[in-house]
């Protein structure tokens, strides 16, 4: 279920990118997509009834069911990257505003 919800998030994000000309809103769309894909990754690694993949006193051995640790590691990295890209995107957004006085891409069509 979560898988499909996350795929829906990706689609919503794509729709956001396609439907707006506003730079900030496009960035929001990208972020929604990224959240969607991150949840999707977690959902893929999820094992019903599984514990956190950490060896400890409570979870001493390999007998217990773990959720997939790889997926969680991937998501951590992916979040960080998403953050960096968003930050950079915001910088470009500021630059666009500074140069053209607007966040709307359809108003600055002349730049080539």
């Amino acid at each position, binding site marked *: 279920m979560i898988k499909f919800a996350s795929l829906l998030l*990706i689609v919503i*994000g*794509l729709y956001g*990118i396609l439907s707006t000309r506003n*730079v900030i809103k*496009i960035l929001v769309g*990208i972020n929604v*997509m*990224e959240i969607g*894909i991150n949840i*999707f*990754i977690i959902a*893929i690694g999820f094992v019903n009834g599984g514990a956190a993949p950490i060896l400890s006193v409570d979870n001493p051995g390999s007998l217990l069911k773990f959720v997939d640790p*790889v*997926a969680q590691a*991937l998501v951590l*990295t*992916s979040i960080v*990257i998403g953050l*960096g*890209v968003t930050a*950079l*995107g915001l910088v*470009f*957004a500021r*630059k*666009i505003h*500074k*140069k*053209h006085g607007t966040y709307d*891409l359809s108003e*600055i069509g002349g*730049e*080539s």
Partner: protein
Amino acid sequence: MMFNPVLLIAIPLGLAFIAVIFKKIQKWILALGIIVNAVLVFFVEKGETAIGGFKIPFGISLVLDDFSAAGVILINILALAAIVIAFKKAEKFAPVILAGLAGMNGMILTGDLFNLFVFMEITAISAYILSSEGRKPAQSFNYLVIGSVGSVFYLLGLILLYNQTGTLNMVLMTEKTGFLEQTVLLLPVLLIFVGIAVEAKLLPMAGWVRGVLGNSNSYTGVMFASVYSSAALFVFGRIFSQVLVPGTTVGIVIITIALVTFAAGQASAFRSKSLRQVLLYSSIAQSGLAAALFATGFVFPAVLVVVNNAIGKLIMFSAAGSLEEKYGTDDYIGLGGAFNKNTLTGIAFTIAALSLTGLPLLFGFYAKLNVLAAYLNQGTFFVPAVVLLGTIVEGAYFIKILIKLWAPGKEGEWADADQSVGDKRIFSYTGTIAVILAAVLVVLSGLLPDTAGKLIAPEGGLLGDDGPAISLLIQKGGDQ
């Protein structure tokens, strides 16, 4: 003394952080990092190196085979050449360039598909930042959005594959996808293809290229057209010639896209009037050709195409960017006779253009022969015909540019040096030497093609292909 290949990633990445801290000396750090890498790349250990104490295939590994060796050598040498040509333009981006170099080396070396994603993103972010040098933030933003969407697609495809196979390691992935149905693989492979194609400049994913490369300067143009795009193409080759060899159905889709890219690129370059635009469209066309070759499994010819394009575009884009800086335009109609007082640069530019067209005595000819022979040995005649038609168009627009830049003068009168646009020097002395060395390399490898082929593929083949589709030396004495 052989070194661990991880140094190729660690050194520039570490220096990138140092350069952020010591802003005052960052240009020396940049020079140091690039030079060290360019030297080190010849002394790294071949084979598979595990990273982080995990056994292969559980952890991340770096794979240095002949293919990735060719890739990293090309990338690091080109990066060195790029800063030699335009150090002034590069120095303020020191951390970005170093991080980007680390990312590219990682992309080519890594044996892990998710790790590849991470390195691709590092590279992409450094590319976004470099593109801002064009002072067209909307274009950079366009690039960033397309790149982000591409990487989300890549990640989605990768996760779908992971779900099916339970591994991210390339070697294991190859093994396990072998058991899967073509129809199951269709969507993930297409998603991954689209993700990589954004950086590899295949149409329609390359919508950012005109805005970014069309506003590049003598440094960023080289970085985008020869360094980044070569790295992306090497990744493309790794994925689609080895890890996820496309089956017939996906193969047809990918090859069609690649060939359309080739044709559309050549046609667009033919109609363009601005030097950088011609070059960027020609880059797109060459990427299309290389991608088609990779997707068919002709790795060695594809690598020749990539190398030839990278060296050619190094010379041409730096000259185009420099001309734009000197004269305020890169419309080649308005640059008549720009080579008149820049004979050496002009000769290097001419050699690069002729080599890209695949004219004999130059490296490009060897590449072109290999491309044609690979297909014809296989019994395919359609693709060689397309390639040769494209070559006619390519030759047409390059010769138009060369004639314009060499011989100014009105129609009906003799070419006249007094009609030249000016006599400004295109490159500094070091820059001239760098492009001349690159041109000499093109000529030498063209005269001794089999030696050059041996250097690129010492074992005779890359990623398990047949290697040179054609050997010129075998013909010696007329024996087959």
